[in-house]
């Protein structure tokens, strides 16, 4: 008996020793593999030149749960609202503050025989501890639809109850002398104009301001058992939660009215003015102005900051035609035509042309300076027609914009060839029967979704020029083989006929994401010729 027992014991030990590491592993995988959006990195500015401990990744949700959701455990209260800084209001954070309060609380919890965080001397449990797999934090964009939701909410109340709208609940201005905020009707601006990434003397950081205002308001409403916005990190900063919000808002998106900020519907953007010879003379404009459809552009952007990056003033208040200090000496002309900025007209339009509906043609167009003919598309009003009166200018702009959007002419259906046989090179493969009309109509359908494309293309014939490029616009453009030879010098940038055909068709299919025709599916376009000499 004793012999058998010891044998069994050994067997059990062996089995356990083999399995033990795996048990640990499976546990590890199950618990720790999820990223969460609530990781707050506490990284104080360097206090001494000595080697300092690495930053602390603080898990907010875990602590929030431990505190039973009571903000007051960690955050101080000021005028019924929480200041979302750790145990302080305006002071800068110090190491002592964190050590005393964090470890103090942990000790208290431990005394109650509850599960508690690391204590003193367990430095590395907080500092540089690899507890998390990174943060999944995502910025939330307070766009038109979220704005609309707050604008129409009964729970967002204006400062003075007599006011008809609730703009004053959030929007404010700041008096630098009295150090007080105040509200002026019709001068609301975007938060980011004052609240930057980093706090400055007279304004909190955007992060500070938005948490103090948004989260405080939400928690206050929640305490009164009123349905309100998110109060946890995850509620706003988790991608899944964000998509839920978006899905909910997409229903109301179409009904979103314009912002009420006295902005024009259409406006004339004028450039340089000639020097006046006498006081009475009307200003003489040197550049054909742009009749700009402000209303339409508002509907195409998420919020005002897409263009108005520093304030809601007019562009040429800072970016004057000749440049000024306020506009950092970037002139009106530069700022509107800058290809690299996505706030400029040209830059934003070029960015738009990168989407798959446009990229089929536009991706294959080489970078070039503006063509002479394309200037007039935007500079669509004659300079000598500009009235002196601002309202009359707006009326003129509206007229021009309306005329321009109705200008698009389509090509008559019977003028589009049904099928084109491409057999110039057929050898290994039989000639390709190219469904010309089908392709033209498919391109037209996608291109004409956009009102901008219609204005810039002017008419449907422009779409023909996507493939029949580099020749004057015509209903009967030259054939590919007219320019692309079979054996010409290829290093001058012009592909051979084979490269031209495949380049045009396949690249367009790739860029427009036409999934039905794979680039490597040769037989889809031309059947293999089994009798051909290879």
């Amino acid at each position, binding site marked *: 008996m004793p012999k058998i027992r010891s044998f069994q014991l050994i067997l059990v030990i062996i089995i356990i020793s083999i399995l033990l590491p795996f048990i640990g592993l499976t546990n590890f995988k199950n618990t720790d593999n999820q990223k969460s959006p609530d990781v707050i990195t506490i990284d104080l500015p360097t206090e001494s030149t000595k080697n300092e401990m690495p930053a602390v990744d603080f898990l907010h949700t875990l602590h929030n749960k431990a505190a039973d959701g009571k903000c007051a455990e960690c955050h101080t209260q000021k005028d019924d609202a929480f200041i979302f800084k750790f145990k302080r209001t305006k002071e800068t954070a110090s190491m002592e503050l964190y050590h005393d309060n964090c470890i103090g609380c942990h000790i208290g919890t431990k005394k109650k025989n509850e599960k508690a965080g690391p204590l003193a001397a367990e430095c590395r449990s907080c500092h540089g501890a690899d507890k998390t797999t990174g943060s999944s934090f995502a910025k939330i964009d307070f766009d038109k639809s979220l704005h609309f939701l707050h604008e129409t909410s009964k729970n967002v109340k204006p400062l003075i109850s007599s006011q008809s709208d609730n703009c004053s609940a959030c929007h404010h201005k700041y008096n630098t002398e009295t150090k007080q905020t105040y509200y002026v009707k019709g001068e609301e601006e975007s938060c980011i104009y004052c609240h930057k990434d980093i706090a400055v003397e007279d304004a909190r950081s955007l992060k500070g301001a938005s948490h103090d205002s948004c989260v405080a308001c939400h928690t206050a409403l929640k305490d009164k058992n009123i349905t309100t916005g998110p109060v946890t990190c995850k509620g706003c900063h988790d991608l899944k939660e964000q998509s839920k919000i978006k899905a909910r808002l997409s229903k109301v998106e179409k009904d979103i009215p314009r912002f009420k900020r006295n902005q024009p519907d259409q406006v004339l953007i004028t450039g340089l003015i000639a020097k006046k010879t006498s006081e009475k003379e009307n200003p003489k404009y040197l550049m054909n102005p742009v009749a700009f459809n402000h209303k339409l552009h508002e509907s195409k952007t998420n919020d005002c900051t897409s263009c108005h990056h520093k304030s809601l003033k007019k562009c040429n208040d800072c970016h004057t035609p000749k440049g000024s200090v306020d506009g950092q000496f970037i002139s009106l002309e530069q700022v509107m035509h800058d290809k690299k900025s996505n706030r400029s007209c040209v830059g934003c339009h070029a960015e738009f042309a990168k989407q798959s509906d446009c990229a089929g043609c536009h991706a294959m167009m080489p*970078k070039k300076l503006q063509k002479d003919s394309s200037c007039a598309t935007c500079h669509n009003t004659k300079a000598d027609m500009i009235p002196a009166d601002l309202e009359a200018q707006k009326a003129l702009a509206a007229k021009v914009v309306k005329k321009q959007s109705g200008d698009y002419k389509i090509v008559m259906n019977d003028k589009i060839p049904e099928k084109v046989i491409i057999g110039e090179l057929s050898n290994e493969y039989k000639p390709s029967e190219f469904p010309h009309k089908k392709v033209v109509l498919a391109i037209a359908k996608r291109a004409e979704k956009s009102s901008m494309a219609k204005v810039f293309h002017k008419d449907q014939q422009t779409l023909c020029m996507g493939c029949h490029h580099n020749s004057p616009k015509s209903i009967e453009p030259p054939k590919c083989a007219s320019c692309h030879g079979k054996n010409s010098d290829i*290093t001058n940038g012009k592909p*051979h006929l*084979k*490269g031209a055909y495949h*380049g045009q068709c*396949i690249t367009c299919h*790739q860029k427009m994401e036409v999934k039905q025709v794979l680039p490597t599916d040769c037989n889809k376009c031309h059947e293999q010729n089994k009798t051909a000499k290879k």
Partner: protein
Amino acid sequence: MAISRRKFLSCIGAAALTTTTNGLSKAYGASNKHFKGHPDSFGILHDITKCIGCRKCEAACNKVNELTQPEKSFEDLSILDQKRRTDANIYTVVNKFKHDTRAPVFVKKQCNHCMEPACASACFVKALNKTKTGAVIYDESLCVGCRYCMIACPFEIPAYEYHKALTPRITKCTMCYPRLLEGKLPGCVEACPKEALIFGERDKLLKAAWQRIYRYPDQYLEHIYGEHEMGGTSWLYLSKHPFSKIGMREDLGKKSAPELTTGPLSAVPIVVGLWPVLLTGVYAISKRKDKIAKEEKEKAVAQTTALAKEDTEKKLEALREKMTREKTSAINFEVKKALEEAEKTDAADKTDDKAPEESGKEEN
């Protein structure tokens, strides 16, 4: 005096070091010039953004080089999911690289036909050669099968026919050299439906490539791979994605392999030539040391001996003088005594005058 092994080696090492460092610091005729390739040599531009991964180039390569057919046909594109490299029977491969969620990127890999090939510089029988067409070609009749070229190539291209026991060869892309001589395009270039490969004079291709970069700044990196890599290659590449992320080495630098090795290698003949001189020198020095020591010793011994001799002689002389003096004084004494005696006798006998005179003469 015998020289130790350690001393011998350190001497050789020091000698080698001085000659090499001299070699590096001095501007040699060869390394001061930059070889820009044969004029009008050809190249191929691979525009990675245009490649669709159809494997037509692989099929064409297989056909024109009369290689054995692979198990799976070239129309099977599933093979692109593996990372492949060239081998004895495959001169070129197309690899697929996935980039975020966008469409995958396809990159063709083959011999890059360096302007100054590492393989050719490593080959000590000149079996690999850079021709004026730009192609780096292989002459199996010269090859000794050392496979140094395989180790030298930074792109890991040359392969070896390990399966052949008696006539193994090095194999790699020839840029279709035989076809070039016939005025035909390389097989892969001819087969590419998208003109992702274009053939032409390397200089013109470089211009064409830069033109593409300028005209489509969004679509290309401002970098032509092969313009300067390893001193430049005949095969040039354009890409939108960083080359290091599509399986191409970006750590190779701009110097060609021969350029990198000229310095140290140029020292080799000097070191080899120096050895006999150095060894003889070391031997001669130690020998001379022995000789000098011996000579010095002999001299010292001779000197000491001479000194001792002199000393003894001096002593002897002194002794002799002393003895002579004593003798003389003894004689004088005897003479004096005799004279006194004679005077005594003279006084006694004045008649016998002549007798002492005669005896005095005799004494002197």
